[in-house]
């Protein structure tokens, strides 16, 4: 299954998949049709997005996120083909929305639903949505509850805005200061000056919106990548965020088509090395130059 963003040829699927559940549980109101008949004008144009889950060339699920300004976003119009329900498609679609929301630095993500849509309610709760009072009392026809997403203590997402890229750079600077060795032999200053040139992927960890960790991915060849500069600020150490960011990096690297991930570290950083072993990394022969004498080189097939 593949998640893709809006394309005009999927507009019909967006309408059909949503009408299917609306007609089953509610009465279809003009306000529904306004959105379903015109996702471009009502969702995309104001800065939102519509996602589709594809199985081959067939659309099996969809979800939309509306932009309401001032960092407020609404997750809406989640519809999964009844024959494909229960396979985690709804969850994957919602996670795509959460990532999209985080990557854009959104402040509030909410949704409105109805308590009789039990599987949907369960999914939203599992994802971290909490019931609360709607600050904007209007509400949608056919909804009886309002939920806001409470981000987990630490969130991890792709760094793709200038702000997030700059924040990663700051974390890596803190990393080089914390590291017991001088990274001069790796031309660290030059790397910082040209940052993020040389990296194909950056992940950032944030706690209450504040950057607390980062990791980078470097390409060696078409099949091989290297985990670089993993660092969690002291306040995020020991929270499991380091493990989480590694796991996300491995999943992303695999999705980018890499087959092997390499890394190097120092044996004296025993907590880090223990984490890599737990994640399935195995020690290998050196693959680059490093003047330190306790360097450990590791590899994991993705």
């Amino acid at each position, binding site marked *: 299954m593949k998640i893709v*963003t*809006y*394309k*005009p040829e999927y507009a019909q699927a967006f309408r059909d998949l949503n009408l299917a559940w609306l007609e089953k549980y509610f009465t279809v109101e003009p306000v529904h049709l306004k959105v379903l008949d015109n996702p*471009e*004008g009502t969702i*995309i*144009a104001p*800065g939102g997005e519509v996602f589709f889950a594809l199985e081959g060339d067939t659309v099996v699920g969809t979800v939309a996120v509306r932009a309401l300004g001032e960092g407020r976003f609404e997750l809406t119009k989640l519809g999964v083909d009844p024959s494909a329900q229960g396979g985690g498609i709804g969850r994957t679609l919602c996670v795509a929305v959460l990532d999209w929301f985080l990557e854009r630095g959104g402040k509030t993500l909410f949704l409105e639903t109805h308590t009789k849509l039990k599987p949907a309610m369960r999914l939203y709760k599992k994802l971290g949505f909490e019931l609360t009072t709607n600050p904007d009392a209007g509400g949608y026809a056919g909804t009886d509850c309002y939920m806001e997403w409470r981000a987990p203590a630490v969130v991890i997402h*792709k*760094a*793709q*805005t*200038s*702000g997030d*890229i700059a924040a990663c750079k700051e974390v890596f600077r803190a990393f080089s200061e914390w590291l017991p060795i001088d990274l001069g032999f790796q031309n660290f200053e030059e790397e910082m000056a040209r940052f*993020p*040139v040389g*990296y*194909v*992927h*950056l992940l950032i960890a944030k706690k209450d919106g504040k950057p607390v960790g980062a990791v980078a991915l470097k*390409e060696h060849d*078409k099949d091989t990548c290297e985990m670089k500069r993993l660092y969690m600020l002291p306040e995020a150490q020991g929270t499991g965020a380091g493990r989480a960011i590694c796991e996300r990096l491995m999943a992303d690297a695999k999705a*980018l*088509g890499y087959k092997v991930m390499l890394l190097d570290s120092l044996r004296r950083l025993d907590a880090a090395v223990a984490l890599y072993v737990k994640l399935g990394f195995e020690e290998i022969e050196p693959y680059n130059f490093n003047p330190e004498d306790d360097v450990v080189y590791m590899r994991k097939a993705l």
Partner: protein
Amino acid sequence: MSIPDELFFELGIGTRMRRLYEQMSADADRIYKETGTDFRVGYFYVVFALHKRGSMPISEISRLAGFSHSAVSQTVKKLMKFGWLETCSTEDGRQKLVSLTDAGNKLIDELMPLWLGLERAVKTAMSEANVDLLAALDGLENALRGKSMYDRLREEQVIRDKPPFEIVPYDMAYRQAFYDLNIAWVRQYFKVEPIDEKVLSDPEGTILDKGGEIFFAVADGKAVGAVAMKAEGDGRFELTKLGVDPTVRKGGMGRALCEKVIERFRARGGKTLYLETNTVLAPAIALYDKIGFVAMDPPVPSPYERANYYMEWREQAE
């Protein structure tokens, strides 16, 4: 013998095999003629199979040789005329078996010393050439049995017919490609201006953060084309930084990238989609023209020195 200006290689492998066959069979036939019999190379597989395995139906000879039933049947008929073969029905009468006659067996006795000689000659020739031709033939026959030439060709056509690239939204994995693909054509036709460096080396800051979008054409995991759509507010968007890898088969990549921008422009309810280019880039202008861009006077001067041609997109009547 490989000839000095050889023309046939993988394409023409059949010609090469026939060349080898004709060369060897001409020599063998010369030897058969010298014995004074009517036996010829073309009869060998039938006579040899019956000699080695005894009587059998035509279908079995056909299977052992890998030749068609009708080809075998014609040879058998000819050999029956020479009196070397005969056919008889099986006991249940359901099949016709081909067998050697007494004359046929006598012929084999006569030919056997020649065959042993020929076998030795082929072995020596192969060892001189230092090739294991039989192993090579086995390998190739097995490979083709696994997947025929027909299937292989069809498969390749399927790969060729589908667009050789996929259009994907911006990802940092292709960040360098955005720079490389564009700097290449700017350098080739113009000089790199400071604004080029600024935009190409900071796509996040100059395009994405400001609500713009970037798309890549990706083939085999590698970005081979890029385009950007800058958002200038009030529904005004600019199609810019269109660069394609000139070494990649075109296949409509530039067009597909532009159409993606138009699709997003429309989906986002944009009012104006414009681009600035230079008349030197005639093929690009021809493409823009084809997909609905119309040349106009620029409403404001361009920040690019090289820009001397301004176009706006117009919705085309279907």
